[in-house]
Structures are given as C-alpha cells and as structure tokens.
C-alpha cells in the first residue's frame, strides 16, 4: 500500500473529513453486504417453499431493493465528501507551500530550478489532493470493509470464509511483492520513458533553430530512431511489469467464484446448509469491492507519493536568509543609508552552477549615502551575487553587510525589502493589467500618478498604444511586452516605490540606443538623493557613476572614480577599448 507516515501528516487538519469519507464508504459496503444477505434470503424462501410465495418473498425482496437505493445514496455521499476533503487539503497545502516559498525568498529560487518548484506547487499539490481525498479513505475502507464481510462469511462457513479471506488479503499484498521483483525493471522503463519525453520537449522548443539549420529531418529521424530503440528496450520490461496483473486477476476470480463452488461441494457433503451456501454465493463478491476500488485509485496513490517528495523538499528547505530573532529597525526614515560591505565571502549553497567555488571573496566596499556605485566585470565575476546579497536573498558565509551600521541579518526583513527598489535585467510581469502591475509598487496610486510614472519611465506611449491602454492584460497569458518595454515598466515601478536604495541590474540592457539615452535621464533623476548600485557593461551607463568597482572571479580588482581609472591600464581600460572599437 502506498502509505507513508509523513503523507498521513499532510491529512492532518482534514482527518475528520477523511474519516467521514471512509465511514460513508464503509456504510456503503455494509449496505452492499446487507443487500447480498437479503437477496440470499429471498432466494432461500423461494426455493425452500417450493413454489414462489409472494407474501414470504416480498419482504426480503423489498429490503433488497431499499438497500440497493441506500447503498447508492451512501456512495454518492462518499463521492461528495471525498471531493470536499480533497479541496480542503489542497487549499491548505498550497497556501502553506506558497507561504513557505515567500519565507524562503528569492534565494531559494536562485539555487533551485524554478520549473521544479512550479511543478510542485501546481501539479504536485493536485496530486496530493487526490491522494489524501481519494486514496487514503479508500485504504481505510479496503482494510475495514473486507474484514466485516469475511467475518460474516466465516461465521457461515469457515472454509469459504478462509478462501475468500486469503484472496482478499493476497490481492493487495501481492502487488508490492511483484513490484519489488519488477520494481527495478519498471523504474528503468519509466526513467527511460521520461528521458525521451524530455528530449521531445527539447526538440519542439528548439524547432525554430532546427528549421534554421535545415535539421528538422535529421533530428526528427533521430528522435524516431530513439523512440523505436526505447520501445524495443522497454517492451520486455513492460511484459514483466504487467505480470502484476496475473496474480491479482487470478485471486480476484478465485475469491469470488471458486469459493462458491467449494461451498457448493460442502453443501453436497452436508457440511453447509442451504442458507449458508446462498449467503456465500452472494456475499463473496462484496468482500472484493473495496479492494477493487483501491486498485482504481492506484494512480492517485502513486502520483501522490511521488509528489510528496517535492512537497517535503520545499517544506524542509533551509532558509537562505532566515528572519532575525530580534529584528532591529533602522528607523522609519526614507533617507538613503550608508552601505558597507566588509570582507564579504559567499558561495552558493546546493546545486547552483559553480558550487564550491566562492562567488565573492573578501569584498570590501563602502557606498556613501546618495552616491552611485557602478559594478562591472565579466559574466560570472560576482556582480549579480553582490546584488543578491544586498537584497539579502542570502547571507554571506563570512564578512558583513551593513546599512547605517546595522547588519542586514539583524534588520527586519520587510524593512530590508522596503529599503530597495530594483530594476533588473529581466522583469517579471504578473498576470493582470498594466495598471495592476504598476500598482504593485504603490497600491493606492491613482491613474494620474501611474501615467506620470510611465511618462518618466519613457513607457507611456507604449502603454497608450496597447489595445486597452493601462487596462491591457499582460503577463503569462496576456499581451507580451518586449524586454526593453518590461525594463521600462520596472523603472516605472521603481519610481512609484520611491525607496532610498536603488539597484539597477543591467537596467537598460534591452532598450535601443534612443530610448536608453532618454531612460538614462529618467534614471538620473531617480538616482538623485538615493544610494544607487548599478551593474552595467555599457560605458554610456558607467560614466554616470561616482565610483566604479570592477569584479573579477569574485574579487574586487579595481575601484575608483571613472575618470581616475581611465588613466590606468587594467580591466577598465580594456572595456573602454573594446567598446570604442579602438585597439591599443
């Protein structure tokens, strides 16, 4: 049976509804048994009296009919209760996971593939819903229901009871036994199958590239060949893993049919009376009903268990930047802080590419309030890591980051987040209108405020040109904005947020030259009176900084005013040379 103790805990808080579902289901089994008893009695009276006696048969016949209806109603109630339970469990679990993710923060998504997380919270939770709502109650019923029926059977005829009882126990018990034998093969089969599905996905997503390379034929042929190879390799496994069905099908039929024939033989030798034989004949099938239904829910059980792994991984994840025990506040002021990095060393935890190597090594920097620091360096040199740490997605392993002398670790997390506004290389737009996306930064802003922010972010014309202006739905299933347009939305958000620290992470990388020039003006206004950290490659952005820091392989290698650095030979002058097209 696909039950693990921890999975049961997911049903906690819904144990009442789970129990109610199981109880309704048990009552339905009891009604089914009663139905069989009444039917047996009807036939007994008819056969023993020799000729049908309407009065004698009428009673049990009516009872049988009533029990048929009652059983159906109970099953209907069970279905509805199961559905309710399932919904309840899902709502709780999904919110719990969402809450957990919000607590873990972006640090968690930096180190883990976001796709997996999405699958866990979207599909995984649905699988758990079915597991707790449908599979678990059925497990209870498949344990209790047959027990009642077999007890009645044994009371009538121990031999028939023993046969049915053995078969009922062996049907579910035989599955894990077979699975253990077939498990490795079957798992290999599924792993290969999923690998192949991933390759097809890969091919379809890369179709534009395949077409451009004129390789659709070649690649398609390769996929077809692999599909064939996979098919050949797994058919043997499939034949073996399907053998699970042999035993359960055999036991099922043996339990319902052979036990009846055995009872008939025992009647002929006088060991069982007519009433007993009739009862055995109609009741044995009832013992298997719950077990059969459990098999119908096997998928729910299997997928639920599989989904549990992802769910528990999220619930058990270490917070990369836990909330402080005794949070300190920097005060309500909106004045720009003095930011200091002192000997900061940091390596990404977990499966981040480049694990084990520190992304930052002993970086020390001071950013005076209201000034702009530009950070540049090769990709992988640690720029983005610096930004991640300044927003406290992670805590450094050694060294400290201070805002006005207070360690970020001790500051209230909401305050850290409220302190900074970020314009990133890629900005996420939520499913909703443009106005919704802007109001995220300032919920009470009226349309005039939004328009003004959009105008300053050089995005107003674009928004006005959308089919419904500020009410146009954007995001995953809405209108798409280009990378440059999204960046400008982010600038508008930053304007609306009005935070004392501004982080510009390649903020104008995706806009064209003309827009960039205009946007730089806007960002220039935005920087006034704020402490700004700017990550950039383009000289046109870097020259606006008070201070330039050049990172290389996690170390701070150059550091000074742009004009001062220009004179020296080093990374900075390389950059100038590359971008101005001059070789030195």
């Amino acid at each position, binding site marked *: 049976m696909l039950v693990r103790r921890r999975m049961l805990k997911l049903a906690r808080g819904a144990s009442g509804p789970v129990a109610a579902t199981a109880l309704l289901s048990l009552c339905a089994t009891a009604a089914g048994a009663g139905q069989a008893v009444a039917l047996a009695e009807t036939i007994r009276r008819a056969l023993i009296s020799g000729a049908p006696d309407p009065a004698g048969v009428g009673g049990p*016949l009516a009872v049988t009919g009533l029990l*048929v209806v009652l*059983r159906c*109603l109970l099953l*209907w109630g069970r*279905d509805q209760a199961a*559905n309710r339970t*399932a*919904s309840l469990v899902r*709502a709780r679990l999904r919110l719990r996971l969402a809450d957990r*993710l919000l607590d873990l923060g*972006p640090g968690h998504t930096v180190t883990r593939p976001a796709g997996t997380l999405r699958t866990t919270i*979207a599909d995984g939770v649905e699988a758990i819903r079915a597991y707790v709502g449908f599979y678990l109650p059925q497990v209870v019923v498949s344990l209790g229901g047959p027990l009642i029926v077999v007890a009645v059977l044994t009371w009538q005829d121990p031999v028939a009871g023993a046969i049915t009882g053995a078969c009922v126990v062996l049907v579910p018990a035989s599955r894990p036994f077979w699975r253990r034998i077939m498990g490795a093969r079957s798992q290999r089969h599924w792993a290969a199958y999923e690998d192949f*599905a991933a390759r097809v996905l*890969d091919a*379809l*997503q*890369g179709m534009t590239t*395949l*077409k451009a*390379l004129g390789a659709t034929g*070649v690649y*398609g042929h390769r*996929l*077809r060949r692999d599909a064939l190879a996979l098919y050949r390799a*797994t058919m043997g496994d499939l034949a073996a893993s399907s*053998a699970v069905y042999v035993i359960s*099908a*055999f036991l099922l*039929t043996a339990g*319902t*049919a052979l036990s*009846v024939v055995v009872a*008939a*033989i025992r009647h002929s*030798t006088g060991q069982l009376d007519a009433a007993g034989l009739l009862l*055995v004949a109609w009741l044995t099938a009832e013992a298997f009903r719950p077990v059969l239904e459990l098999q119908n829910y096997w998928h729910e059980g299997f997928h639920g268990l599989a989904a549990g792994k992802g769910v528990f991984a999220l619930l058990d994840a270490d917070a990369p930047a836990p909330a402080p025990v005794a949070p300190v506040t920097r005060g309500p002021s909106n004045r720009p802080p003095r930011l200091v990095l002192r000997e900061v060393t940091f390596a990404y935890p977990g499966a981040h590419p480049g694990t084990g190597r520190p992304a930052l090594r002993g970086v020390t920097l001071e950013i005076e309030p209201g000034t702009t620091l530009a950070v540049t360096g*090769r*990709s992988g*040199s640690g720029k983005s890591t610096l930004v991640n740490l300044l927003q406290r997605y992670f805590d450094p392993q050694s060294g400290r980051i201070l805002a006005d002398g207070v360690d970020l670790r001790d500051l209230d997390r909401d305050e850290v987040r409220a302190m*900074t506004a*970020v314009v990133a290389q890629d900005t*996420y737009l939520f499913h909703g209108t443009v106005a919704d996306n802007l109001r*995220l930064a300032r919920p009470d802003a009226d349309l005039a405020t939004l328009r003004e922010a959009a105008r300053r972010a050089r995005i107003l014309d674009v928004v006005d040109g959308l089919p419904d202006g500020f009410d146009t739905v954007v995001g*995953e299933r*809405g209108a798409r904005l280009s990378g440059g*347009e999204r960046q400008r939305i982010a600038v508008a958000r930053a304007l609306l947020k009005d935070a004392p620290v501004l982080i510009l992470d390649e903020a104008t990388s995706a*806009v064209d*030259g*003309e827009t*960039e*020039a205009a946007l730089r003006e806007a960002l220039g206004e935005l920087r006034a009176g704020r402490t700004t950290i700017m990550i*950039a490659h*383009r*000289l*046109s*952005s*870097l020259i606006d900084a008070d201070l330039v820091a050049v990172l290389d392989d996690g170390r701070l290698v150059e550091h000074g005013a742009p004009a001062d650095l220009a004179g020296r030979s080093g990374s900075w002058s390389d950059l100038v040379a590359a*971008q101005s097209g*001059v070789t030195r």
Partner: protein
Amino acid sequence: MTSASPAVKGRGVAGLLRVLSGHLRPFGLSVLFAVVNQAAGMSAVVLAAAAAGRALSGAGTAELWPMFWWTLGLTALRAAANWVESWISHELSFRVLAQIRQWLYGAFARIAPGGLVRRRGGDLVVRALRDSESLEIFYAHTSIYIAAALVVTPSAVVAMGSIGGLRAAVALAPWLIAALALPLALRRAGTRHGADLNRALTAMNVEVTDLVHGLRETLSFGGGPDLLARLRAADRRLASAERRQSLRAGLETVAGGIAIGGASLSVLVTGLDGGLPAPALLASVALAGAAFTPITMLLNVTRVWGITSDSADRVFDLLEEPAAVADTGAAALPVLTGPPAVEFDQVVFGYDETRPVLRGVSLTVPAGTTLALAGATGAGKSTLAHLLLRHFDPAAGAVRVGGVDLRDLPLDDLPELVCHVPQEAFLFHDTLRANLELARPGASADDLAHACADARVTPFLERLSDGLDTVVGERGAALSGGERQRVAIARALLRDRPVLVLDESSSQLDALSERELQAALDRVGNGRTTLVIAHRLTTLRHADLVAVLDHGRIADVGGHAELLARCEPYRRLVQAQADAAALLDGRPRPDDDARR
C-alpha cells in the same frame, strides 16, 4: 519525424479513433484479450452460481467437482488474458503516443516560428505534450473497453436468453441500456465540466507561475498577502468547478448502482415467476450482476472523458494549424558562383492588418557585404529578418536572393541558401558536439575544431569538464548568453551558407566577451552576404553599410560615419554610446568630428 500528419480531421472520439486506424493489429489483439478476460471472468462467476444451484437441487459431489475444475480453468484463463491485455494495450498506447508526438513534431516543424507568434500565451509546447500524454488513458484503456463492451455486453444478453429464457434476457436488457445511456446523456455536461475544470486549473497555474517566477518582485513590493489572496480565490474557483464535476460524476455512480441492483431483482422476479430450476435461477441472477462489468469498467475510465476530449481538441487544433507561409514554390535554387545579393522590393507587412510594421521597404544588401540594420525597438528590424527567413511572407512586394523570389522556392530549400544566428541561440540538452553537428551532420573533427576556433568557442571549451562532449544542460544552461551565441556562430560556420541573418543579442556583454564575439562575427561574415540586426556600436562601425529603419520605412542607408553626419534618427540612436566611448577614450566626439 517529418512526416506530415495525415488528415486527422475528426473531433473528439472520431478523431481519436481515426488515429487508431494505423495500429489495428495491437488494437485488435488488445480487444481480443480484453474480451477473453471479461468473458472468462463472467463465465466463472456464472458457473459457480450454477454449481451452487445444482448443490441446492441435491447434486452429488461427483457432479460438482468437474464444475470446480472448469471454474479453476476459467480463472486461470482470465488471469492470463488480463496479463496479455494489459501488456499489449500499453504497447498500443506507447506506439500511438509516439505517433502523436511525431505528428506534433511535424506540426511544429510546419508552423514554427511564424505560426507560433500567433498562438501567444502559455507555454504552447509544454501544453501540447501534456495534452498528448493525457490521451494515454484513452488508448491504453478507454478505446479497448469501448470495443470490448460492444462485444461482451450483447453476448451477456444472449447468454441470459439461453440460461433464463427470453423473458430473463428482456428483463436484463433495459437496465444495461439505462446504465450506458444516462452517463452518455450526461456526457455533454461532462465535456463542459471538463473544460471548466481545465480553465480553472490553468488560471491556478498562472497564479502559481506568478508566485514562483515573480518571487523577487512580490517580496520587493510587499505583494505577498495580495498574492496569497489571489491564490485563495483561484483555489475557490477550482473547488467550485470540481464540485460541479463531482456532483455529476456522483449521479453516474448512483445510476450505475441502481441499474445493477434493478437488473438482479428483475431477473430474479422473472425467474421466480417462470419457475426456473435452482441452477438456472442462480446462474441468471449472477449473470445479471456480472453483465455490467464491461460497462462499469468503461464508465470508470470515461469519467475523465471531458478532460480527455478537451485535450484531444487542442492537440487536433495544433495538428491542423495552417503554416504561416504557403509552400507552393517549385523553382530550382539559383546557381551561385559567389554570395548573392539580397533584395527587399517594396515590402509591406504587418502581423495584423490594422498595424503595418513594414510600409514599403526597399533595400539591397550587395553581394558579399555586411549590412547592419539600425533602428529603435519596434522599427521593424526583426520583421525584416523574419521575411528573409520566410517565417512570414510579405503582404505586398517581394524578397529576392540572387534574383529569385523566395516564394518561388520550396520551403525546404531555403536553409540551403540562408543561415540564421538568432538572438537567443537555442541549445539542445545534449553534448556540445551534438549541438554543433546538427549544422553539418558528419562533420569531421577538423571541421569542428576550425569552427570552434573561428567562432571563439575554443577559449571556453577548456573550462568545460568534457570539452566538446560536455552536456550543455537544459536550453544550454551550462553556458552564458554570450557563449551560447558563439556556439550559434560556430553552427553558422559549419553550415557555410552564402547568406547569413544575424540577430545580434541585445543584452550587454562584458568587454572581453564583446571583443571575442566581434572577432567571431568578422570571421563568419567573411565571404557572405550578411544582414545584421545591430544593437552594439562596434557592430555598426564594422558593417559595410548601415540601413536605418524608422517606423517601418528606410530612413537612410550609408556608412556609419556618413549617417552620423546626415541622419538625425541615426544620431539619436547611437549618440549615447558614441559619446561615452569618445569621452572616456579622450578622443573628440564623433559627431563633432563629422560636423567639423
């Protein structure tokens, strides 16, 4: 997997069944064994009841033992048939799924990328594959149970006739029909509920996507509580869709239960009335119950029918999606002695009719030169490249390569002429070598080494653990954007086609990467006619010609310096970068230079 999907024109069941027509043998075998499985199971139960009846009529042990062995034999037969059925039916679904994937591949090959632009929203590919997988249950179970029920259920009625007489058969039949008819009558509602449920699930997935992918923004703006509220609301909508679905499904359960009970009682009463002997009476009542097995199994799997047919509809939609361009050309490729000229002649194009993107563009890229397209976002640079790659065809005017209108060429021949280096180079989750060899199957080690050296792939190859045999990860995640683009350039070098379309990455690169990329680009443009969508100053400077696109028209064509001097839109575009470079380089500003 390039075979075009055959006309799968049907919708729903008809369409799904038509797919089966290519797999009749495994389908027939699955149905055969399903019939044996169900019939043997049913017979065993009926035989056992008959044995009980005989015992009640006073039969001796000697008469009952043969019935025991028969029952045992039927039981074994059933178990064996069950095994074979489940094996072959899984094989069937495996093959059908492979087939549908093959068709999807063909469909995507036909409509990508132009047709995909039209179908915005969601991750189309992921959804298409998920949809095709949800058809598995149809091919592994539903289709087989339908066919088996068609055989076994009437046989059960006939058997009832021979055991209990015509009256018993007549008593059974209406209940069987009712058990099948009610769910079928509810099917329309089921389809609607399935669609509702899918919609609610999709809406929920959007919220989850917002949660996971928008986590930075949510936390930065304190949007957590709001997002949780939205999740809660999406959950409520989903729960209410499920409630409706569950109420209907429950009704089907009730109908099934009542029908089975009703059938048993009707047959019993008819039998008692007709004075059937005990063996026949018991056997017919047992058969009345067992006759519903095929229908119950069928209804169990069709409960998710709404979801299946919804998925099937979407898959078929995609298979029938027309290509973005009509592949009607039959002209031979032009015979080239050197790189051909590329000509845009009065080209007009818009993605929708109300908003033209290109309004009469005439432009020639002289043979063997590099022309850089400059222009603000939305000016039409990428669209022009799309037309040269025939992702779309112009609404008016023509695109010619070496004097041949592209529409006159078979679509499959275009890659022989034109090679594309996209802005976001897509790398397959495979080794670097496999990714490169796609461009030239059977490339020698020398070819690869040269291409890697020229495209500046070699410098970062050393960093990779297994060199060319390093697996690059999903979408090439193990490489940086600049590195991926250099791999794309190496591919173009291996392709070695006379015309090159280069969509320069708009994201910023660090100094060293930028220089390496430029070196690679210089190398790949050599001896080819190249159209570059330019974002970087260095590219504009290196190009033979620069064409300035402004609101769908060519504003000017000329060299970089010339344009700086005379073309105002161009100056606005590059001023900022040019200024900064000049300032820090301690040289005079380029426009001062030009003005002087």
